[in-house]
Every structure is written in C-alpha cells, then in structure tokens.
C-alpha cells in the first residue's frame, strides 16, 4: 500500500463560475499548495460540461508523499515558516467564497486491493 495521502477538494461553484474558479484556484491557491509539498493529481468537472444557470462541482485531487509530509503541509517548519495557525493559507479560501456555494475536503488513502 502506498504511503501517499490524498486530499480531495470538492467545490460547488456558483452558476457559470466553473472556469473562473478553476483558473483562480490554479493561479492563486495551487502555487502555495505546491510550496507546502502538495502535488496536484487531477482536476475534474461534474456534470461534464460547463453550466451557466446551474452549479458545477469541481474536484481537485492533491497528494502528499506520506504522513510526515502531511504534517509539514499542515504546520510548516523545516525550510518553510512554522505556521501552526495556517495564516498564510486562509486568504485564498476567504477570497473564493464569492464564487462558492459549498465545499468539502476529504483526506484519503489508497484502498485498492493488492492484486
């Protein structure tokens, strides 16, 4: 079983905002996340077309190498500022609220059966 830890952001965006949210997430949030050791695995859209009068849900799947990398991402430290309160991360989520109906974050591990 892989040691990788997966983080899934599921964002229900306001009608017509799927592309705007995706682009801003990738421009404004993703660089900081990568700097904290996160690896962007994939970006998905559902329903599978951009809706203008209804909401889409965007799925951003990230991973970190292992549990130690998880805590480094959460708390900082090492060659990054130690930031247990996460002050550097809060800004994006507040800024994105105007485009957001709701969001979930799930922490996952690989559970596929070993062949």
């Amino acid at each position: 079983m892989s040691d990788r830890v997966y983080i899934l952001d599921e964002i229900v965006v306001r009608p017509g905002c799927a592309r705007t949210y995706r682009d801003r997430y990738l421009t404004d949030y993703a660089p900081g996340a990568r700097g904290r050791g996160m690896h962007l695995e994939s970006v998905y859209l559902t329903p599978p077309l951009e809706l203008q009068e209804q909401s889409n849900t965007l799925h951003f799947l990230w991973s970190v190498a292992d549990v130690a990398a998880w805590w480094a991402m959460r708390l900082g430290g090492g060659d990054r500022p130690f930031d247990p309160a996460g002050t550097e991360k809060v800004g994006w989520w507040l800024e994105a609220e105007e485009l957001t109906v709701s969001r979930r974050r799930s922490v996952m591990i690989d559970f596929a059966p070993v062949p």
Partner: protein
Amino acid sequence: MTFAVLRSFAVPDGINVDDFVAGLTEHATRLSTLAHSFVGRTLPGGINDGQVIWRAEFASEAHYQVSRRAAMTSMQNEACQDTVFYHLGRHATPHPNLRNGIWRALVFSVEPGTDRQVRAQFEAEMLAMPRHVTTIRNWSLSRVCASQGARPWSYVWEQDFDNLEGLHGQYMMHPIHWGSIDRWYDVEHPDRIVDGYLIHTACASATAQIR
C-alpha cells in the same frame, strides 16, 4: 469534582528558569487546600506555552477559592501568559502508576456560535481517540469554565504518555488523528471549529498527572 488551574509562564530575561520553577514550587506549598501540584519546564516543540507550566489540582472549586488568598509574587503574575480554570471532565486513568513519563496538554478555543450538535460530535470524536491511539495512557477532556490570556479558552485536552515517542510517534502518525480529528483544527477545512491560535505543551513528569 476535581478543580484544576493550569498556567503557562514566559520566564523574564535574566531569571534562571530552574529558579523560577523552584519559586513556583515553594509558592504551591503555601496553598493550604491544594490537592496536587505539578510545576514543569516545557519541552522543545511546544506552541505558545512559554517555558514553565504549573498545574494545580483541588478537591473542588470551593477548595481553590480558599487557596486563592495566597497570591503569587508580582514577578510570577507578570510572567503568567495564560490561565485556564476547569473542572476535570471526561477522563480515564488506567495507568495511575505511570512513572517518568510525559504529560501533554492542548488548550484551545472553539469558535463562538458553533452549533451545539457540531460541538457534541467534535467532543465524541476527541473522546474516541484513546481507543485508537494506545500510547495515550491516561487522558482527560475538560471544558474550561474561566480563563485569562490570549484567547477565551474552551477546552483542555490532557494526556499522559510513557515517553516522547508515544506523543511524537503513534499519536501524531495515527490516521485517526491526521485523517479525521485534525479537520476540526485545520484552517483550510470547512469543518474547522477550533481557533488556529492554541497552546500545545509537554513536560517530563515523574508521575501520572491525570488522576
């Protein structure tokens, strides 16, 4: 019901930390209704915990009120960063004879207005943690009834461990912690209810502190 007072101290420059500990320990002997006292130097890696912790236990809040008459020195008062007053909450002490271990406390504040059912779920999940993390030897989760300092503190979550490896190892690495409980504390998580400014402290302790 056991009543506890937990204080953190930032020892002033020029004051020897061991002398400060000795001074607090001597002060504790003058509290006539004190049931148990622990004064410890905080271990490296603490968050917002100063250099010294004093945990005082009384048989009841009324017993504490009697001992309040014996005041700390002005220097000790000025060095005090945060104070929490609490009745010992849900707890378990299957290892009362623990020796030369680690006492650890997390003092934190839940956001005002947090829904009662959400808070109840949070407490239930915290209380379930020791079933998974077996290095937690004794534990207690207490609601704060009054506090002074950087936040209006809500809870004191305390554990006794056999050693630091129990805290830094299984406690931090167990998936129940980082994969489930941590969401209540994670500023990025929509389920977060705990203020990002908290106190995490650990001290070497000759005896179990949760009794």
